[in-house]
């Protein structure tokens, strides 16, 4: 199969490169101030309407056109456009460092550029976040968080109050592939999901594919979140940081060799435990409760054609009590990349990627310890190519192979503990994929991205592999040797997205994608729990499969100041996973026997109206949707609402620039309550009162709504100095920038239900529905600086 795909790739290349007498304009686009690569910047030619090139993830572009003299314009969102005459009689390399828009005026952003990428691009079902918006949008405890800001966009739903977890288009939380510099992050949240592991200071670009992801991506059913870390300032040393209510952070970036290489190191740590230590209560003093993140990245340009990157993330939560109890968990990722330019039209990238997530729980001290842990670890080798065939075709192709190690239960005991326990056996698998994709412009109005992804998942030894009966009991055990295949699955995922431009202001889009998911998260909790474990597809677990179709209409108004879109989607899911009642997830060697398999469907309508320019910016998003599941053993095999099924979901985000120093912002969210299971009676057994349940997810939580407010005050950006030559006073930009941010989460103090439990009143014995609300009014303040 893989051979076939490679043959297809070469036939494609041969076909597209045949008989072309074109010249190629190529180069790299960067930010003038920081030297950061510009992703998705456009190079267009005035004489050839509809012809242009986009920079790839590394800021590289390549455009092949007939020889001649052209007016070439280079533009990127948020940067000053540059237009110049170019004599393109032979191949030419043109690198450019672009200036941030508005910088020269020292005022609010003004732009004459047409921001119509949403209309012209074939991409749909994509949510992007401007990193600047993240700075202004108020969030819980003032901790800027990309995952929470993304939840304000249509089709993306919060996993619960204050949660960084999210659901995309009716999928479950584990169906999101979260990539940080290509490395999967297996548990993307801290402190039971209240904070994401992503320190926004270290991030450059975030893109969420809700459907129709390019063929390059695969491995999860519902979405791909592609997060890229900053490369670091290659011009000068730059330091930024912030002091917040619960955490502080510091980022240092600097050139290694100016304009050739740079690095960035960014760290964040919470300090609730430091306050606990000040407490008079001895118990509080001995409590441990914190998390930290460390992001680091370096890049170096070896020559015109080669560049290397090394990036990593390390973060951990620590929770414990003195030396007697400890619970810690976290992710570590590492990515090594090598960019190479093969000629001026073929861009290649080789990556070696590492990712690890583990948790450890320790009881006791010294020789009387008992420690359990679990781990998942990946080593991934990946090769990607961008082939800029001509002005009408850009092809991407490549492949990768991942070696997964699953350690479901490691047990260590001290010598004095008096008993031994066996580890749960490790599981190993290989996940590989090859893909090819082409973005083609057809005439002036059509743009089509079509691709094919082939993936394979093979469970390998060593190990004693169990078989189960229908009731989930082990029936047989077979021993396998190192690297011996146990079971194997594969699948072909066609991807298609197309854009038909009705006119300059509006377009119609449609997409289709099939996705496969070979590893599954087993969790007995609704929050993101550190003890959730990933299990691979195996002789007992088949991969999950989904097909999604969507169509959309995109329209801009008032010279692209207002952006409107409507998308509808339908997603069909097969072999989705749920758990047997009372399933034990932790330290269970037979966890595969606890799973149930069913089908799912999700469909919805997403509306977005966004104002992108002016003193007032922001958006309104509305999602009308349904997400349902069907399992033979749940609700007698009838369709029922998935937990994340919420009929209405509204977000309103507004930001207002009073002056260039004061920005106010407000967000309001409303959504229908989750589907939830409530009792329909009670009975007595074993001397205890037990709730009787009749239907899974047959009830609804109360509707949720909340208003958050924020104000950012920038200190003066300019100072007045006396110009020595002219003797006049002039305004000079200050090197040191700082700002204060004040915010209020849940400004009108609504008690939104986090959970509702049915319990006996201690005094009357009466059964009561008790609602828990987590956060009432939470004000916060933070100070940020940069120099």
């Amino acid at each position, binding site marked *: 199969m893989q051979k076939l795909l490679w043959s297809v790739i070469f036939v494609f290349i041969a076909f597209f490169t045949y008989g072309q007498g074109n010249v190629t304009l190529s180069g790299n686009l960067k930010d003038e101030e920081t030297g950061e690569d510009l992703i998705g910047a456009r190079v267009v030619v005035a004489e050839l309407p509809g012809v242009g090139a986009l920079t790839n993830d590394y800021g590289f572009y390549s455009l092949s056109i007939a020889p001649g003299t052209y007016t070439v314009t280079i533009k990127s969102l948020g940067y000053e456009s540059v237009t110049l005459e170019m004599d393109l009689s032979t191949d030419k390399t043109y690198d450019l460092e672009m200036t941030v828009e508005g910088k020269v005026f020292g005022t609010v952003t003004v732009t004459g550029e047409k921001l119509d990428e949403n209309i012209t691009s074939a991409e749909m079902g994509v949510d992007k976040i401007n990193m600047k918006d993240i700075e202004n949008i108020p969030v819980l405890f003032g901790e800027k968080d990309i995952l929470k800001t993304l939840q304000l966009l249509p089709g993306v739903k919060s996993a619960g109050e204050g949660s960084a977890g999210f659901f995309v288009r009716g999928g479950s939380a584990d169906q999101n592939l979260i990539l940080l510099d290509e490395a999967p992050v297996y548990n993307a949240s801290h*402190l*039971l999901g209240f904070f994401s592991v992503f320190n926004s200071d270290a991030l450059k670009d975030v893109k969420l594919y809700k459907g129709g992801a390019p063929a390059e991506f695969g491995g999860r059913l519902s979405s791909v979140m592609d997060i890229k870390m900053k490369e670091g300032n290659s011009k000068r040393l730059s330091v930024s940081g912030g002091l917040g209510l619960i955490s502080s952070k510091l980022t240092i970036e600097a050139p290694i060799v100016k304009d050739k290489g740079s690095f960035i190191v960014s760290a964040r740590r919470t300090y*609730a435990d430091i306050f606990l230590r000040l407490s008079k209560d001895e*118990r509080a003093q001995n*409590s441990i*409760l914190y998390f930290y993140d460390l992001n680091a990245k370096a890049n170096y340009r070896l020559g015109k054609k080669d560049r290397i990157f090394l990036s990593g993330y390390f973060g951990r939560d620590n929770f414990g*009590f*003195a030396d007697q*109890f400890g*619970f810690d968990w976290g992710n570590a990722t590492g990515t090594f990349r090598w960019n190479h330019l093969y000629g001026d039209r073929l861009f290649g990238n080789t990556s070696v990627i590492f990712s690890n997530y583990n948790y450890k729980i320790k009881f006791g001290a010294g020789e009387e310890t008992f420690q359990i842990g679990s781990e998942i670890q990946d080593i991934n080798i990946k090769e990607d190519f961008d082939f800029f065939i001509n002005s009408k075709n850009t092809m991407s192709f490549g492949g990768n192979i991942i070696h997964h190690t699953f350690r479901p*239960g490691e*047990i260590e005991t001290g010598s004095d503990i008096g*008993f*031994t*326990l*066996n580890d*749960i056996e490790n599981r190993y698998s290989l996940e590989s994929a090859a893909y090819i994709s082409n973005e083609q412009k057809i005439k002036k109005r059509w743009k089509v991205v079509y691709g094919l992804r082939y993936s394979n998942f093979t469970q390998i030894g060593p190990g004693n592999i169990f078989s189960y009966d229908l009731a989930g*009991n082990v029936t047989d055990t077979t021993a396998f040797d190192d690297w011996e295949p146990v079971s194997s699955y594969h699948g072909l995922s066609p991807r298609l997205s197309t854009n038909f431009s009705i006119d300059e202001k509006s377009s119609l889009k449609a997409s289709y994608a099939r996705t496969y998911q070979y590893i599954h998260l087993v969790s007995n*909790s*609704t*929050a993101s*729990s550190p003890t959730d474990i990933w299990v691979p597809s195996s002789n007992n677990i088949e991969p999950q499969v989904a097909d999604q179709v969507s169509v959309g209409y995109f329209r801009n108004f008032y010279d692209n100041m207002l952006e409107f879109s409507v998308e509808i989607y339908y997603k069909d899911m097969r072999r989705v996973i749920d758990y*047997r*009642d*009372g399933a034990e997830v932790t*330290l*269970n*060697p037979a966890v595969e026997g606890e799973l149930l398999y069913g089908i799912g469907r999700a469909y919805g309508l997403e509306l977005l109206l966004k104002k992108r320019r002016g003193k007032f910016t922001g958006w309104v998003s509305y999602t009308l949707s349904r997400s349902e599941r069907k399992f033979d053993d749940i609700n007698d095999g009838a369709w029922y609402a998935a937990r994340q099924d919420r009929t209405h979901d509204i977000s309103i985000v507004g930001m207002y620039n009073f002056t260039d120093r004061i920005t106010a912002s407000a967000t309001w969210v409303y959504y229908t309550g989750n589907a939830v*299971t409530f*009792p329909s*009676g*009670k*009975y*007595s*057994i*074993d*001397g*205890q009162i037990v*709730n*009787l*349940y*009749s239907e*899974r*997810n*047959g009830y609804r939580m*109360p509707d949720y709504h909340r208003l958050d407010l924020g104000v950012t005050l920038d200190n003066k950006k300019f100072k007045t100095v006396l110009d020595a030559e002219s003797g006049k006073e002039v305004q000079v930009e200050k090197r040191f920038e700082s700002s204060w941010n004040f915010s209020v989460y849940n400004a009108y103090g609504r*008690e939104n239900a*986090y*959970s*509702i*439990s*049915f319990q006996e009143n201690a005094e009357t014995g*009466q059964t009561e*529905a*008790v*609602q*828990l*609300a*987590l956060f*009432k009014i939470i004000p916060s303040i933070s100070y940020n600086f940069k120099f």
Partner: protein
Amino acid sequence: MNRLETVMLLSLLMVFSACEKVVQIPLNETEPQIVVEAVAKSLTGQSYILLSRSISSYDTSYDFEQLTGASVTVSEPSGGGVVFEEDPMVVGRYIHPAFEVLPNTNYSLKVSYKDQVLEATSRSMTAPQIDSFFVYQNIGGPGQNPDDTTNVLIYTVSDNPDEKNYYRFVLWINGVKENTIFIETDDLGNGETYTSPFFGMSFDSQDTVYAELWSMNVQSYDYFSALYTNLNQSPFSAAPADPPSNIENGIGYFGAFMMDTTSIIIP
């Protein structure tokens, strides 16, 4: 790990501003169901079957109607049937003075109440073995002051290497049954001598603790495991569900349990 999450949540709540209040949630009521608690023991004459009915969630009478006048039979594969008679002391409880469960045997239960017939089967395992009970004095610890002492009761059991074993400990402290469900499997140490504390329990000096160790098949274990989950819901718990009952036309459980017992006076 529910308990762990609860501890974490509580810590978070101290930091945050959580609040609880009673709310009115209308519930759909279902038909009352017959609840069977059928415990067949290897201890002679100590088996019992309790019959009652479920009631609506907001019922204030708390009258789980105990069912009298039922016909209750426990039979073995050999064909012999033992009729359990109503306990004159406890309404809705059915007992037999000589019945005892034998190892590795199939049992079936038949309950006829008015025009309803409820049936269930269960297979017993080999007898479990308690090796020892001892007390460890722990000083300090999570959530304790540094000089607080806790009497931790620790048990050692020997596991049968020839079968997959499932256990439940039932404790009576000074004659009062402890509600906590202690369940265990031999997943992590088949055939080993297994030592563990009764987590979350603290005993006073001079407490008399009587313990029954039940050995059971996987169906009974799954029932107790789900019952434990059901009784220990936290705000983070996944959707709750009824424990998987082996009672046809009813809810609850019928188990044939092999037992070992011991008792200790906490020093």
